[in-house]
């Protein structure tokens, strides 16, 4: 973990309310486990807390980190208006990402993502590809026009889409897509990131899978394990886990979602 002023070198609008930022700096040389996140200081005095974003991809050769975010509130709206060239005080990489070391070339991984849970899964898929793992993606969006990174994922493996309104791919949410198309397929690893409903579906479906992982969100303050703002309860244990430092990635069946 380092704290660094990264330079915003590009910002692109991917959909109606989703943006991609390219940030340049030494942080791109830190070892990144996919699923780890950065905590960004929005340059506005009235916003005290940093904003956490999963790392969508790292390119150490170009000193670049990419983030993909949706504009939901004040902070992300401000970020989306920032001009190229500005310096963004960034803390990261933070937390524990998706375990992948156990996988061998030729093995099969399923990546399940929804909405703005998708960005960190892109770096995951890239790293799995580099390891020679065969990756299948099940990706959910609200509507067709909200889809981003379609080409990027397609280049990395099979992609099954679900949309809530049926405007693209399977008509329904991700849990229904899994039921319809993935019931008889086995994977050596399962990874998920997305809204609460998606995580509950995956957690339930793969609770006994030896290598199934979900990435959680939580309201954070310090972002690094010292303030206890972001806790989730461990399942079947009198224990609280910190999403920022024990997570954001947890094995299925481990935490109350």
């Amino acid at each position, binding site marked *: 973990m380092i*704290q660094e002023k990264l330079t915003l070198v590009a910002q692109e609008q991917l959909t109606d309310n989703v943006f991609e930022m390219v940030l340049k700096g030494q942080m791109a040389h830190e070892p990144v486990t996919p699923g780890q996140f950065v905590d960004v200081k929005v340059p506005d005095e009235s916003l005290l807390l940093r904003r956490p974003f999963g790392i969508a991809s790292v390119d150490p050769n170009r000193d670049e980190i990419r983030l993909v975010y949706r504009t939901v509130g004040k902070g992300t709206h401000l970020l989306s208006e920032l001009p190229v060239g500005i310096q963004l005080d960034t803390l990261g990489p933070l937390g524990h990402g998706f375990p992948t070391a156990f996988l061998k070339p030729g093995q099969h991984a399923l990546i399940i993502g929804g909405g703005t849970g998708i960005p960190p899964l892109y770096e995951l898929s890239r790293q799995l590809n580099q390891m020679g793992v065969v990756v299948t993606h099940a990706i959910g969006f609200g509507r067709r026009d909200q889809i981003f990174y379609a080409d990027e994922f397609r280049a990395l493996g099979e992609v099954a889409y679900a949309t809530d309104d049926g405007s693209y791919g399977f008509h329904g949410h991700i849990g229904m897509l899994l039921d319809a198309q993935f019931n008889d397929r086995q994977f050596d690893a399962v990874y998920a990131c997305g809204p609460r409903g998606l995580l509950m579906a995956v957690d339930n479906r793969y609770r006994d899978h030896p290598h199934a992982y979900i990435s959680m969100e939580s309201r954070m303050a310090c*972002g*690094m394990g010292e303030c206890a703002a972001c806790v989730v309860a461990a399942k079947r244990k009198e224990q609280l886990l910190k999403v920022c430092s024990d997570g954001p990635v947890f094995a299925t069946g481990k935490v109350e979602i």
Partner: protein
Amino acid sequence: MSRLEVDLPGLHLKNPIMPASGCFGFGQHYAELYDLNRLGAIIVKAATLEPRKGNPTPRVAETASGALNAIGLQNPGLDAIMTEKLPWLNDRFPELPVIANVAGSTEDEYVAVCRRISTAPNVAAIELNISCPNVAHGGMQFGTDPKMAAELTRACKAVSQVPVYVKLSPNVTDITVIAKAVEAAGADGFSMINTLVGMQIDLKTRKPFLGNRTGGLSGAAIKPVAVRMIDQVRHISALPIIGMGGVSSAEDALELLMAGANAIAVGSANFGDPQACPHIIDALPKAMDQYHIETIKSLSTNL
């Protein structure tokens, strides 16, 4: 003598800046970012006798130039703090004065924690947290009733091996009444202010956003209240004051010192900038030059 040095009961500080309780844990992760020896001292997270699970989530909400928190004193309990947390700090930063923040639901609990925690080799002082707004029992109710506050202070002083700073609540009609009461009961100093009780409503659910309904307001938003209350207490007491509330720059620190504080704790600013403390320490000499301040000590007319 360094320009930044300050001496308070139990605390020889090489500079007046320390992280505030609850915003810095026991410093373990912050130590990955900078050498904690640069701090004047460290105020660690509240310790209670038994481990506490704290409040339901969400525990933090952002507000204009501030934040609401309702952590609810989650901590691993006195045993773990004595055997793991404090030794970790002592092993790595033996010269760093630790101020132990003590909380409880009953006087007995406070007394038990003070008795034992004050024997830790690196605990230089106790900050008696009679002002936590985020717990149903104890906490703030001790800090809003002068009689209870005085009795608790007396009992803790009787067992503590180190000086006791009483952390005052701003959620009172007249803070000087409480300050006088705990001074008469033997407090060695004050620490102020804790958070103001606040609430945020989630427009989607029309219910309070925080799991605990209310939370404590901190950050730049409350600095004017902190300055006012430090000034008030300085006018009725010569005891040392560890000032806090919205400090995020060297100028903010100087403002609280001029109001009457003798040292400064930095709380939620650590969230915006995890290196807030060293950044403030580094910026102090230049800011002092600008305002013709020779030494931090010289601002403390009371000592």
